[in-house]
Protein backbone atom coordinates (compact mmCIF):
# COMPACT_ATOMS: atom_id res chain seq x y z
CA UNK A 1 0.00 0.00 0.00
CA UNK A 2 2.96 2.31 0.31
CA UNK A 3 3.68 2.70 -3.35
CA UNK A 4 1.26 5.04 -5.11
CA UNK A 5 -0.39 3.33 -8.04
CA UNK A 6 -1.45 6.49 -9.84
CA UNK A 7 0.37 7.26 -13.06
CA UNK A 8 1.55 10.63 -14.23
CA UNK A 9 -1.75 11.89 -15.65
CA UNK A 10 -5.40 11.35 -14.93
CA UNK A 11 -7.10 11.35 -18.30
CA UNK A 12 -9.51 8.48 -17.89
CA UNK A 13 -10.77 6.27 -15.10
CA UNK A 14 -9.03 3.51 -17.03
CA UNK A 15 -5.69 5.11 -16.04
CA UNK A 16 -6.39 4.19 -12.42
CA UNK A 17 -7.81 0.70 -12.49
CA UNK A 18 -9.45 -0.80 -9.39
CA UNK A 19 -6.35 -0.34 -7.20
CA UNK A 20 -5.88 3.26 -8.26
CA UNK A 21 -9.52 4.08 -7.59
CA UNK A 22 -9.29 2.40 -4.18
CA UNK A 23 -6.21 4.47 -3.41
CA UNK A 24 -7.88 7.75 -4.39
CA UNK A 25 -10.88 6.89 -2.19
CA UNK A 26 -8.61 5.96 0.71
CA UNK A 27 -6.43 9.07 0.53
CA UNK A 28 -9.52 11.26 0.04
CA UNK A 29 -10.75 10.17 3.49
CA UNK A 30 -7.63 11.75 4.98
CA UNK A 31 -8.33 14.95 3.06
CA UNK A 32 -11.95 14.90 4.17
CA UNK A 33 -10.55 15.07 7.71
CA UNK A 34 -8.46 18.09 6.69
CA UNK A 35 -11.64 19.73 5.44
CA UNK A 36 -13.37 19.25 8.78
CA UNK A 37 -10.70 21.28 10.58
CA UNK A 38 -11.06 24.88 11.66
CA UNK A 39 -8.27 25.79 9.23
CA UNK A 40 -8.66 23.31 6.37
CA UNK A 41 -5.24 23.70 4.81
CA UNK A 42 -2.10 21.57 4.71
CA UNK A 43 1.36 22.53 3.39
CA UNK A 44 1.67 19.41 1.23
CA UNK A 45 2.13 20.97 -2.22
CA UNK A 46 3.84 24.21 -1.24
CA UNK A 47 5.70 25.77 -4.14
CA UNK A 48 3.81 23.83 -6.79
CA UNK A 49 1.75 25.65 -9.38
CA UNK A 50 -1.50 24.28 -10.72
CA UNK A 51 -3.17 25.81 -13.77
CA UNK A 52 -6.80 25.39 -14.71
CA UNK A 53 -7.39 25.59 -18.45
CA UNK A 54 -11.10 25.63 -19.00
CA UNK A 55 -12.19 25.92 -22.60
CA UNK A 56 -15.78 25.33 -21.56
CA UNK A 57 -17.80 27.05 -18.91
CA UNK A 58 -17.95 25.47 -15.49
CA UNK A 59 -18.64 26.61 -12.01
CA UNK A 60 -18.41 23.72 -9.62
CA UNK A 61 -15.61 21.73 -11.21
CA UNK A 62 -13.31 24.69 -11.62
CA UNK A 63 -13.95 26.08 -8.15
CA UNK A 64 -13.63 22.61 -6.69
CA UNK A 65 -10.23 22.01 -8.31
CA UNK A 66 -9.00 25.46 -7.37
CA UNK A 67 -10.15 25.06 -3.78
CA UNK A 68 -8.51 21.64 -3.63
CA UNK A 69 -5.20 23.00 -4.91
CA UNK A 70 -5.30 25.94 -2.50
CA UNK A 71 -6.03 23.70 0.47
CA UNK A 72 -2.89 21.78 -0.48
CA UNK A 73 -0.99 25.12 -0.45
CA UNK A 74 -0.30 24.95 -4.19
CA UNK A 75 -0.48 28.18 -6.14
CA UNK A 76 -3.30 28.36 -8.63
CA UNK A 77 -3.46 30.20 -11.90
CA UNK A 78 -6.60 30.03 -13.93
CA UNK A 79 -6.80 30.69 -17.59
CA UNK A 80 -10.22 31.96 -18.49
CA UNK A 81 -10.95 31.37 -22.13
CA UNK A 82 -12.61 34.74 -22.61
CA UNK A 83 -9.57 36.76 -21.51
CA UNK A 84 -6.80 34.58 -22.92
CA UNK A 85 -4.83 34.56 -26.13
CA UNK A 86 -7.04 31.73 -27.33
CA UNK A 87 -9.41 34.50 -28.31
CA UNK A 88 -6.62 35.95 -30.44
CA UNK A 89 -6.30 32.71 -32.35
CA UNK A 90 -3.63 30.87 -30.37
CA UNK A 91 -3.74 27.11 -30.81
CA UNK A 92 -4.32 24.72 -27.92
CA UNK A 93 -0.78 23.45 -28.30
CA UNK A 94 0.78 26.90 -28.11
CA UNK A 95 -1.36 27.77 -25.12
CA UNK A 96 -0.26 24.63 -23.32
CA UNK A 97 3.41 25.13 -24.18
CA UNK A 98 3.24 28.72 -22.98
CA UNK A 99 1.70 27.63 -19.73
CA UNK A 100 4.25 24.89 -19.21
CA UNK A 101 7.14 27.22 -20.00
CA UNK A 102 6.10 29.19 -16.94
CA UNK A 103 7.00 26.22 -14.78
CA UNK A 104 3.53 24.97 -14.06
CA UNK A 105 3.36 21.56 -12.40
CA UNK A 106 -0.16 20.48 -13.27
CA UNK A 107 -2.63 21.45 -15.94
CA UNK A 108 -6.30 20.81 -15.33
CA UNK A 109 -8.05 20.77 -18.66
CA UNK A 110 -11.68 21.02 -19.61
CA UNK A 111 -12.37 21.08 -23.30
CA UNK A 112 -15.34 20.61 -25.57
CA UNK A 113 -13.47 18.13 -27.74
CA UNK A 114 -13.12 14.54 -26.61
CA UNK A 115 -9.46 13.63 -26.36
CA UNK A 116 -8.14 17.17 -25.86
CA UNK A 117 -6.50 16.30 -22.50
CA UNK A 118 -4.80 13.31 -24.13
CA UNK A 119 -3.35 15.63 -26.75
CA UNK A 120 -2.21 18.02 -24.06
CA UNK A 121 -0.58 15.14 -22.18
CA UNK A 122 1.39 14.34 -25.32
CA UNK A 123 2.72 17.89 -25.53
CA UNK A 124 3.78 18.57 -21.96
CA UNK A 125 7.26 17.61 -20.88
CA UNK A 126 6.98 17.50 -17.15
CA UNK A 127 3.57 18.79 -16.10
CA UNK A 128 0.81 16.47 -14.96
CA UNK A 129 -2.45 16.62 -16.89
CA UNK A 130 -5.83 16.11 -15.26
CA UNK A 131 -8.95 15.73 -17.32
CA UNK A 132 -11.73 17.90 -15.92
CA UNK A 133 -14.16 16.88 -18.64
CA UNK A 134 -13.59 16.46 -22.36
CA UNK A 135 -16.52 16.55 -24.73
CA UNK A 136 -18.67 13.45 -24.45
CA UNK A 137 -15.70 11.37 -23.40
CA UNK A 138 -14.84 11.38 -19.67
CA UNK A 139 -14.96 13.30 -16.43
CA UNK A 140 -12.95 11.05 -14.13
CA UNK A 141 -12.93 13.12 -10.94
CA UNK A 142 -16.72 13.35 -11.01
CA UNK A 143 -17.03 9.56 -11.08
CA UNK A 144 -14.48 9.28 -8.27
CA UNK A 145 -16.38 11.69 -6.06
CA UNK A 146 -19.61 9.84 -6.80
CA UNK A 147 -18.03 6.58 -5.62
CA UNK A 148 -16.59 8.35 -2.58
CA UNK A 149 -19.99 9.81 -1.69
CA UNK A 150 -21.81 6.51 -2.15
CA UNK A 151 -19.33 4.74 0.13
CA UNK A 152 -19.64 7.50 2.71
CA UNK A 153 -23.42 7.10 2.78
CA UNK A 154 -23.19 3.31 3.00
CA UNK A 155 -20.68 3.60 5.85
CA UNK A 156 -22.86 6.06 7.74
CA UNK A 157 -25.87 3.79 7.48
CA UNK A 158 -23.82 0.82 8.67
CA UNK A 159 -22.35 2.91 11.48
CA UNK A 160 -18.76 2.18 10.44
CA UNK A 161 -15.91 4.23 8.99
CA UNK A 162 -15.77 4.50 5.18
CA UNK A 163 -12.18 3.22 5.24
CA UNK A 164 -13.27 -0.02 6.87
CA UNK A 165 -15.54 -0.69 3.89
CA UNK A 166 -12.63 -0.61 1.45
CA UNK A 167 -14.07 -1.08 -2.00
CA UNK A 168 -15.81 -4.34 -1.18
CA UNK A 169 -19.00 -2.39 -0.56
CA UNK A 170 -19.24 -1.82 -4.32
CA UNK A 171 -19.21 -5.51 -5.21
CA UNK A 172 -22.61 -6.38 -6.60
CA UNK A 173 -23.97 -2.88 -5.92
CA UNK A 174 -26.72 -2.13 -8.42
CA UNK A 175 -26.11 1.21 -10.10
CA UNK A 176 -28.69 2.72 -12.42
CA UNK A 177 -27.63 5.62 -14.62
CA UNK A 178 -30.58 7.56 -15.97
CA UNK A 179 -30.72 10.26 -18.60
CA UNK A 180 -28.64 11.61 -21.41
CA UNK A 181 -26.01 8.88 -21.58
CA UNK A 182 -25.00 9.61 -25.16
CA UNK A 183 -23.76 13.12 -24.49
CA UNK A 184 -22.53 12.54 -20.96
CA UNK A 185 -18.86 12.31 -20.10
CA UNK A 186 -19.91 11.67 -16.52
CA UNK A 187 -21.76 8.52 -17.57
CA UNK A 188 -18.71 7.09 -19.31
CA UNK A 189 -16.47 7.66 -16.31
CA UNK A 190 -19.13 6.32 -13.96
CA UNK A 191 -19.58 3.13 -15.97
CA UNK A 192 -15.81 2.53 -15.92
CA UNK A 193 -15.42 3.36 -12.23
CA UNK A 194 -18.40 1.45 -10.88
CA UNK A 195 -17.63 -1.52 -13.09
CA UNK A 196 -13.97 -1.54 -12.02
CA UNK A 197 -15.11 -1.71 -8.40
CA UNK A 198 -17.39 -4.65 -9.09
CA UNK A 199 -20.77 -2.91 -9.26
CA UNK A 200 -23.47 -3.93 -11.75
CA UNK A 201 -24.32 -0.99 -13.96
CA UNK A 202 -27.60 -0.51 -15.81
CA UNK A 203 -28.53 2.37 -18.09
CA UNK A 204 -31.96 3.81 -18.59
CA UNK A 205 -32.56 6.41 -21.30
CA UNK A 206 -34.59 7.04 -24.41
CA UNK A 207 -33.06 5.23 -27.37
CA UNK A 208 -32.06 8.54 -28.91
CA UNK A 209 -29.97 9.39 -25.84
CA UNK A 210 -28.12 6.07 -25.65
CA UNK A 211 -24.81 5.82 -27.52
CA UNK A 212 -25.21 4.36 -31.02
CA UNK A 213 -23.44 1.22 -29.87
CA UNK A 214 -22.96 -0.20 -26.42
CA UNK A 215 -20.65 -2.92 -27.64
CA UNK A 216 -17.93 -3.50 -25.10
CA UNK A 217 -19.74 -1.55 -22.39
CA UNK A 218 -20.13 -3.63 -19.24
CA UNK A 219 -23.74 -2.55 -18.80
CA UNK A 220 -27.31 -3.67 -19.22
CA UNK A 221 -30.09 -1.46 -20.53
CA UNK A 222 -33.30 -1.07 -18.56
CA UNK A 223 -36.40 -0.32 -20.57
CA UNK A 224 -38.76 1.05 -18.01
CA UNK A 225 -37.60 3.44 -15.31
CA UNK A 226 -40.39 2.56 -12.87
CA UNK A 227 -39.36 -1.11 -12.89
CA UNK A 228 -35.63 -0.38 -12.78
CA UNK A 229 -35.80 2.05 -9.86
CA UNK A 230 -36.93 -0.53 -7.34
CA UNK A 231 -33.87 -2.69 -8.08
CA UNK A 232 -31.28 0.06 -7.83
CA UNK A 233 -29.01 0.74 -4.84
CA UNK A 234 -27.60 3.84 -6.51
CA UNK A 235 -29.47 6.03 -8.97
CA UNK A 236 -27.29 8.42 -10.92
CA UNK A 237 -29.33 11.08 -12.68
CA UNK A 238 -27.79 13.00 -15.55
CA UNK A 239 -28.73 16.35 -16.90
CA UNK A 240 -30.20 16.72 -20.33
CA UNK A 241 -27.26 18.41 -22.06
CA UNK A 242 -29.19 21.10 -23.88
CA UNK A 243 -25.98 22.94 -24.80
CA UNK A 244 -24.80 19.83 -26.65
CA UNK A 245 -28.06 19.70 -28.55
CA UNK A 246 -29.63 16.87 -26.64
CA UNK A 247 -32.91 18.78 -26.47
CA UNK A 248 -33.39 17.79 -30.10
CA UNK A 249 -33.23 14.11 -29.19
CA UNK A 250 -36.43 14.12 -27.17
CA UNK A 251 -39.87 15.14 -28.40
CA UNK A 252 -40.30 17.59 -25.53
CA UNK A 253 -38.92 18.21 -22.09
CA UNK A 254 -42.31 17.45 -20.63
CA UNK A 255 -42.39 14.05 -22.29
CA UNK A 256 -38.81 13.37 -21.20
CA UNK A 257 -39.74 14.19 -17.62
CA UNK A 258 -42.84 12.04 -17.81
CA UNK A 259 -40.86 8.96 -18.85
CA UNK A 260 -37.34 9.50 -17.50
CA UNK A 261 -37.54 12.19 -14.84
CA UNK A 262 -37.37 11.29 -11.17
CA UNK A 263 -40.73 12.75 -10.28
CA UNK A 264 -42.21 12.70 -6.78
CA UNK A 265 -44.58 9.91 -7.84
CA UNK A 266 -41.76 7.87 -9.26
CA UNK A 267 -39.49 8.44 -6.26
CA UNK A 268 -41.94 6.25 -4.34
CA UNK A 269 -40.57 3.30 -6.36
CA UNK A 270 -37.06 3.86 -4.98
CA UNK A 271 -35.89 1.22 -2.58
CA UNK A 272 -35.67 2.65 0.91
CA UNK A 273 -31.86 2.42 0.97
CA UNK A 274 -31.33 3.94 -2.46
CA UNK A 275 -28.79 6.74 -2.92
CA UNK A 276 -29.57 9.34 -5.57
CA UNK A 277 -26.63 11.19 -7.10
CA UNK A 278 -26.51 13.98 -9.63
CA UNK A 279 -23.31 15.56 -10.99
CA UNK A 280 -24.95 18.99 -11.19
CA UNK A 281 -26.02 21.42 -12.31
CA UNK A 282 -29.49 20.04 -11.60
CA UNK A 283 -32.41 21.18 -13.66
CA UNK A 284 -35.21 20.85 -11.16
CA UNK A 285 -38.46 19.84 -12.78
CA UNK A 286 -36.78 18.09 -15.74
CA UNK A 287 -34.60 15.15 -14.69
CA UNK A 288 -35.41 15.50 -11.01
CA UNK A 289 -38.42 16.97 -9.26
CA UNK A 290 -37.61 19.70 -6.80
CA UNK A 291 -39.08 17.85 -3.82
CA UNK A 292 -37.07 14.73 -4.74
CA UNK A 293 -33.83 16.71 -4.94
CA UNK A 294 -34.42 17.73 -1.34
CA UNK A 295 -35.02 14.18 -0.04
CA UNK A 296 -32.36 12.73 2.28
CA UNK A 297 -31.66 10.04 -0.34
CA UNK A 298 -30.42 12.74 -2.73
CA UNK A 299 -26.82 13.51 -1.86
CA UNK A 300 -26.11 16.24 -4.39
CA UNK A 301 -24.76 18.81 -1.94
CA UNK A 302 -22.64 16.19 -0.27
CA UNK A 303 -21.17 15.27 -3.67
CA UNK A 304 -20.09 18.87 -4.14
CA UNK A 305 -18.49 18.97 -0.69
CA UNK A 306 -16.69 15.67 -1.29
CA UNK A 307 -15.46 16.88 -4.66
CA UNK A 308 -12.81 19.00 -2.98
CA UNK A 309 -11.43 16.14 -0.86
CA UNK A 310 -11.36 13.78 -3.84
CA UNK A 311 -9.60 16.34 -6.03
CA UNK A 312 -7.10 17.00 -3.26
CA UNK A 313 -6.37 13.28 -3.28
CA UNK A 314 -5.92 13.23 -7.05
CA UNK A 315 -3.60 16.26 -7.00
CA UNK A 316 -1.62 14.83 -4.09
CA UNK A 317 -1.23 11.40 -5.67
CA UNK A 318 -0.08 12.84 -9.00
CA UNK A 319 2.07 15.75 -7.82
CA UNK A 320 3.37 14.22 -4.62
CA UNK A 321 4.63 11.06 -6.25
CA UNK A 322 8.38 10.56 -6.30
CA UNK A 323 10.04 11.52 -9.52
CA UNK A 324 7.71 14.46 -9.86
CA UNK A 325 10.00 17.45 -9.97
CA UNK A 326 10.47 19.11 -6.64
CA UNK A 327 11.02 22.85 -6.61
CA UNK A 328 13.86 23.26 -4.17
Amino acid at each position, binding site marked *: *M*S*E*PTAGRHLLSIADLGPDGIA*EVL*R*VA*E*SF*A*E*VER*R*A*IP*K*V*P*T*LRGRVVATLFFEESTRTRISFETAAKR*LSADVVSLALASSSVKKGESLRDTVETVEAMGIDAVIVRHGAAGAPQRVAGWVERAHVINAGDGWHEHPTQALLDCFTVRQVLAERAGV*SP*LSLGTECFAGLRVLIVGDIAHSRVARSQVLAYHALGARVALCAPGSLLPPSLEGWPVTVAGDLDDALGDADVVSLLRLQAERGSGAFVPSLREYTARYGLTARRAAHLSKDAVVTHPGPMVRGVEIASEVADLPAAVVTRQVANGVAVRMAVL*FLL*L*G*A*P*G*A*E*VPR
Partner: protein
Amino acid sequence: MAERERSHTRPLGGVFVPHSQVLSAADVQRALTRMAHEVVERNGGLDDVVLIGLQTGGVPLALRMAELLSDVEGEAVPVGTLDVAFYRDDIGLRPVLPEAVTDIPCDITSKLVVLVDDVLFTGRTVRAALNALSDYGRARVVQLAVMVDRGHRELPIRPDFVGKNLPTRRDEMVDVSDDGVAIGRLEAR
Protein backbone atom coordinates in the same frame (compact mmCIF):
# COMPACT_ATOMS: atom_id res chain seq x y z
CA MET B 1 12.09 -13.52 16.60
CA ALA B 2 9.76 -13.77 13.67
CA GLU B 3 10.12 -12.13 10.32
CA ARG B 4 7.41 -9.61 9.81
CA GLU B 5 5.76 -7.92 6.89
CA ARG B 6 6.29 -4.15 7.10
CA SER B 7 4.04 -2.81 4.40
CA HIS B 8 3.83 0.70 5.78
CA THR B 9 7.47 1.34 6.44
CA ARG B 10 8.77 4.16 4.35
CA PRO B 11 10.18 4.50 1.83
CA LEU B 12 8.91 1.11 0.69
CA GLY B 13 7.50 -1.96 2.29
CA GLY B 14 9.42 -5.13 2.78
CA VAL B 15 10.06 -7.93 5.20
CA PHE B 16 11.68 -7.11 8.51
CA VAL B 17 14.34 -9.71 9.30
CA PRO B 18 15.43 -9.40 12.95
CA HIS B 19 18.96 -10.26 14.10
CA SER B 20 18.73 -9.40 17.76
CA GLN B 21 15.97 -9.00 20.26
CA VAL B 22 16.53 -5.94 22.43
CA LEU B 23 13.45 -5.81 24.64
CA SER B 24 10.92 -8.53 25.36
CA ALA B 25 7.21 -7.84 25.45
CA ALA B 26 7.46 -7.69 29.26
CA ASP B 27 10.37 -5.21 29.05
CA VAL B 28 8.28 -2.95 26.82
CA GLN B 29 5.41 -3.12 29.29
CA ARG B 30 7.75 -2.20 32.17
CA ALA B 31 9.25 0.68 30.19
CA LEU B 32 5.78 1.96 29.33
CA THR B 33 4.76 1.75 32.98
CA ARG B 34 7.82 3.77 33.99
CA MET B 35 7.16 6.32 31.25
CA ALA B 36 3.55 6.66 32.38
CA HIS B 37 4.74 7.42 35.91
CA GLU B 38 7.25 9.93 34.50
CA VAL B 39 4.48 11.69 32.58
CA VAL B 40 2.45 12.03 35.77
CA GLU B 41 5.49 13.12 37.77
CA ARG B 42 6.71 15.68 35.25
CA ASN B 43 3.29 17.25 34.84
CA GLY B 44 2.17 17.05 38.45
CA GLY B 45 -0.84 14.93 37.57
CA LEU B 46 -2.89 14.53 34.45
CA ASP B 47 -4.74 17.84 34.25
CA ASP B 48 -5.04 18.90 30.59
CA VAL B 49 -2.91 15.97 29.41
CA VAL B 50 -3.79 14.64 25.94
CA LEU B 51 -1.95 11.68 24.43
CA ILE B 52 -1.49 11.66 20.67
CA GLY B 53 -0.09 8.58 18.97
CA LEU B 54 1.72 9.00 15.66
CA GLN B 55 0.45 6.72 12.93
CA THR B 56 0.99 3.90 12.82
CA GLY B 57 3.57 2.67 15.36
CA GLY B 58 2.77 5.22 18.04
CA VAL B 59 -0.95 4.55 18.19
CA PRO B 60 -1.00 1.22 20.08
CA LEU B 61 1.64 2.57 22.47
CA ALA B 62 -0.45 5.68 23.14
CA LEU B 63 -3.50 3.53 23.86
CA ARG B 64 -1.54 1.32 26.24
CA MET B 65 0.00 4.32 27.98
CA ALA B 66 -3.47 5.83 28.44
CA GLU B 67 -4.56 2.63 30.18
CA LEU B 68 -1.52 2.74 32.45
CA LEU B 69 -2.11 6.41 33.23
CA SER B 70 -5.68 5.74 34.27
CA ASP B 71 -4.40 2.89 36.51
CA VAL B 72 -1.90 5.26 38.11
CA GLU B 73 -4.09 8.32 38.57
CA GLY B 74 -7.58 6.90 38.26
CA GLU B 75 -8.65 9.28 35.53
CA ALA B 76 -9.15 8.80 31.82
CA VAL B 77 -6.86 10.66 29.43
CA PRO B 78 -8.05 11.63 25.94
CA VAL B 79 -6.13 9.77 23.22
CA GLY B 80 -5.84 10.95 19.65
CA THR B 81 -4.02 9.79 16.55
CA LEU B 82 -2.07 11.87 14.09
CA ASP B 83 -1.00 11.03 10.54
CA VAL B 84 1.78 13.36 9.40
CA ALA B 85 1.94 12.40 5.72
CA PHE B 86 0.74 15.79 4.46
CA TYR B 87 3.39 17.58 6.51
CA ARG B 88 6.43 15.55 5.56
CA ASP B 89 9.40 17.29 3.92
CA ASP B 90 10.13 14.39 1.57
CA ILE B 91 6.94 14.56 -0.48
CA GLY B 92 8.00 14.07 -4.09
CA LEU B 93 11.27 12.47 -3.04
CA ARG B 94 9.85 9.14 -2.01
CA PRO B 95 6.42 7.59 -1.72
CA VAL B 96 4.49 9.35 0.99
CA LEU B 97 0.94 8.25 1.64
CA PRO B 98 -1.35 8.77 4.59
CA GLU B 99 -1.75 5.55 6.54
CA ALA B 100 -4.84 6.43 8.53
CA VAL B 101 -7.18 9.32 9.10
CA THR B 102 -6.08 11.72 11.81
CA ASP B 103 -8.36 11.81 14.83
CA ILE B 104 -7.82 14.56 17.39
CA PRO B 105 -10.51 14.00 20.04
CA CYS B 106 -10.62 17.48 21.59
CA ASP B 107 -9.46 21.05 21.14
CA ILE B 108 -5.78 20.97 22.05
CA THR B 109 -5.49 24.70 22.65
CA SER B 110 -3.78 25.29 26.03
CA LYS B 111 -3.60 21.53 26.59
CA LEU B 112 -0.54 19.54 27.51
CA VAL B 113 0.08 17.25 24.56
CA VAL B 114 2.26 14.16 24.82
CA LEU B 115 3.21 12.85 21.38
CA VAL B 116 3.82 9.11 21.44
CA ASP B 117 5.82 7.21 18.83
CA ASP B 118 7.57 3.87 18.66
CA VAL B 119 10.99 4.84 17.31
CA LEU B 120 12.76 8.21 17.27
CA PHE B 121 15.31 8.29 14.45
CA THR B 122 16.02 11.34 12.26
CA GLY B 123 13.40 13.47 14.00
CA ARG B 124 11.68 14.33 10.73
CA THR B 125 8.43 12.62 11.61
CA VAL B 126 8.32 14.55 14.89
CA ARG B 127 9.04 17.79 13.04
CA ALA B 128 6.12 17.05 10.74
CA ALA B 129 3.97 16.14 13.75
CA LEU B 130 4.72 19.46 15.44
CA ASN B 131 3.66 21.34 12.32
CA ALA B 132 0.53 19.23 11.97
CA LEU B 133 -0.34 19.74 15.63
CA SER B 134 -0.11 23.51 15.33
CA ASP B 135 -2.89 23.37 12.72
CA TYR B 136 -5.23 21.99 15.39
CA GLY B 137 -4.53 24.65 17.98
CA ARG B 138 -1.86 26.08 20.25
CA ALA B 139 -0.92 23.49 22.80
CA ARG B 140 0.46 24.90 26.06
CA VAL B 141 3.23 22.30 26.12
CA VAL B 142 4.18 19.52 23.75
CA GLN B 143 6.23 16.62 25.08
CA LEU B 144 7.59 13.59 23.27
CA ALA B 145 7.50 9.98 24.47
CA VAL B 146 9.21 7.25 22.42
CA MET B 147 9.77 3.58 23.11
CA VAL B 148 13.17 3.60 21.39
CA ASP B 149 15.59 6.44 20.73
CA ARG B 150 17.98 5.08 18.16
CA GLY B 151 20.01 8.25 17.51
CA HIS B 152 21.03 9.69 14.11
CA ARG B 153 19.02 12.88 14.54
CA GLU B 154 18.93 15.27 11.60
CA LEU B 155 17.02 17.98 13.45
CA PRO B 156 17.31 19.55 16.90
CA ILE B 157 14.66 17.35 18.50
CA ARG B 158 14.93 15.39 21.74
CA PRO B 159 12.49 13.13 23.56
CA ASP B 160 11.12 13.81 27.05
CA PHE B 161 10.33 10.20 27.92
CA VAL B 162 12.35 7.29 26.53
CA GLY B 163 11.75 3.56 26.87
CA LYS B 164 15.21 2.55 25.71
CA ASN B 165 18.23 4.36 24.30
CA LEU B 166 19.49 2.08 21.58
CA PRO B 167 22.69 2.74 19.63
CA THR B 168 22.21 1.58 16.05
CA ARG B 169 23.79 1.76 12.65
CA ARG B 170 21.97 3.93 10.15
CA ASP B 171 21.21 1.02 7.85
CA GLU B 172 19.67 -1.09 10.57
CA MET B 173 16.01 -1.11 11.29
CA VAL B 174 14.29 -1.08 14.66
CA ASP B 175 10.97 -2.85 14.97
CA VAL B 176 8.57 -2.30 17.85
CA SER B 177 5.69 -4.74 18.03
CA ASP B 178 3.59 -6.64 20.55
CA ASP B 179 6.52 -9.06 20.78
CA GLY B 180 8.94 -6.40 21.98
CA VAL B 181 11.77 -4.52 20.32
CA ALA B 182 14.16 -6.07 17.79
CA ILE B 183 16.97 -4.79 15.57
CA GLY B 184 17.29 -6.16 12.08
CA ARG B 185 17.16 -5.15 8.49
CA LEU B 186 14.45 -4.62 5.92
CA GLU B 187 14.58 -6.90 2.93
CA ALA B 188 12.75 -6.35 -0.31
CA ARG B 189 9.80 -8.59 -0.87
